């Protein structure tokens, strides 16, 4: 296969993996944020 055909071949799968990886990381980030929000921040109570 020529380099262009190779690229054509892999572009049939890209960006499924990148999307999965990015979604996984952002999902973990969101879960982490909400853990801090619910377990540390809100219990420490009101300030304004």
């Amino acid at each position, binding site marked *: 296969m020529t380099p262009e055909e*190779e690229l054509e071949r*892999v572009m049939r*799968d890209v960006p499924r*993996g*990148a999307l999965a*990886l990015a979604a996984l*990381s952002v999902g973990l*980030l969101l879960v982490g944020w909400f853990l801090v929000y619910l377990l540390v921040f809100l219990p420490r109570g009101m300030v304004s």
Partner: protein
Amino acid sequence: MTHARRLALAHFWIGFIAFAIALVLGVWQMWVRSPLPAPFLTASTYFSSVTAHGTAMAYVLTTFTVMGFGYYVAETALARALPAPRWAWTGFWLALAGTLMAVVTIFSGRAAVLFTFYPPLIASVFYYIGLVLVVAGSWIWCVLMIVAMGQWKGANPGRPVPLAMFATVANAVMWLWTTVGVTLELLFQVIPAALGLKAQIDVGLSRTLFSWTLHAVVYFWLIPSYIAFYTMVPQAAGGRLYSDTMGRLTFVLFLIYSLPVGLHHLLMDPHQSNAFKFLQVALTALVSVPTLLTVFTIGASLEIAGRLRGGRGLFGWIGALPWERPLVLATGLAFLMLAFGGFGGLVNMSYGMNAMVHNTSWVTAHFHLIFGGTVVIMYFAIAYTLWPSLTGRAAPSLAAQRLQLWLWFIGMLVMTLPWHYLGLLGQWRRVATFNYADPIIAAWGPWVIVSLVGGLILLVSGLLFVRNLLQFAIGRASHVPAEVYATAVHPPLRVPAALNGFRLWNVLVLVLMLLAYGYPLAQFFIIDPPGALVHRVDQRR
């Protein structure tokens, strides 16, 4: 050697020397704060050291690296000689003279105000003038970058500016906007006070002006890393850039959203209203968009490389990447640290939630992860990538480069994970010593020692970095430098004018800045709050 290459080498070396000195000071500061007895400790040595550490890392290492890298990109990406090299050298000498002036003032004990100034505390005027000279040198660089792009466009009508140069000019334009805040603060408030011309300072105004600069300055440091991600990493990994268009859009978004967000540094200040704080928090949330776009685009570019090398399945391409190449390894480690640092940053910017962590070690952990973990580790990788072409020699050992990058990653995590924890417990910032006899503080001691160990690992890594660069002197001569710039999957033939220049975006920045900072700055002239008396720190009692 061309002018641009000599310029790049000179700038990089000044930056890296400042970095090595600042690293030693940083480790000593952590030692002082730990329960272990430390030498040389007085309040004056400690806070002068903190001032030197911040100044060297945030102003010297970064500014010189950004400038040096810009000169390299302008010559190589545009494939033409740098315009007005004499002006570039003027900028270099100006910034170097300013650096020396500031450093001598700090080490004489007359500038213990930390790199973020804190008026009405006022240091010797030579500290501020030194920093103004550094900024003036960088302004020359900004103009040269804009001129270089303009000349190239004149010679290549209708063709898209190469992404690396487009991004470099985005940074130059952003830096001109960014420095307006701190320049106004220094020229109209701080320097007149340091000269004895003013006895009082409007502190709310000075803090708001500094906040204008304080967030965007981080993106100024960060953009060289992003340029490497977009234009060099896909090539180093053996793949293609997934999307050139989205790269351009990302750098435009950084230009727009890094500026009208600085009030998130003042969430705990009394003198700004919740309405403007909330507006700027909302805009801050949008800054995450270009960052997350980058994670996706670079992920997809690496996925192309991994699959071309035989990787299969949803995640199999990750293992197939050439991790033995320092630039690829640095990118992986940088993204991991960006995830931790970004997590901390999300908490910091979270409006009322900022109260939980403001001015605690949590914040220190966050910006060391972003700065050391995403900015500086990519400066290492950029240096490793450019050095063969700058010195005409091949690297004697890639293993030593990989070891250095791994040590940096491990040290950064060992140092900052305890800081996050201690920050949540309430360990506050900017003190030389803690009273470990207090039962609450005594419990922090072991974690402070763990973070000190992380600092020591970082010191070893930093010194190994300098050694690795010096080792190029014994590398074999190699006169065919490898191509560093990546090709996109669809190399751009034509791009919309909006994505080939910055006129439109400058208008948008102006509008957003008026909206976000217009009233928050104007209010000080409307309510005319009472001033605070100047407190000099440079007069020995």
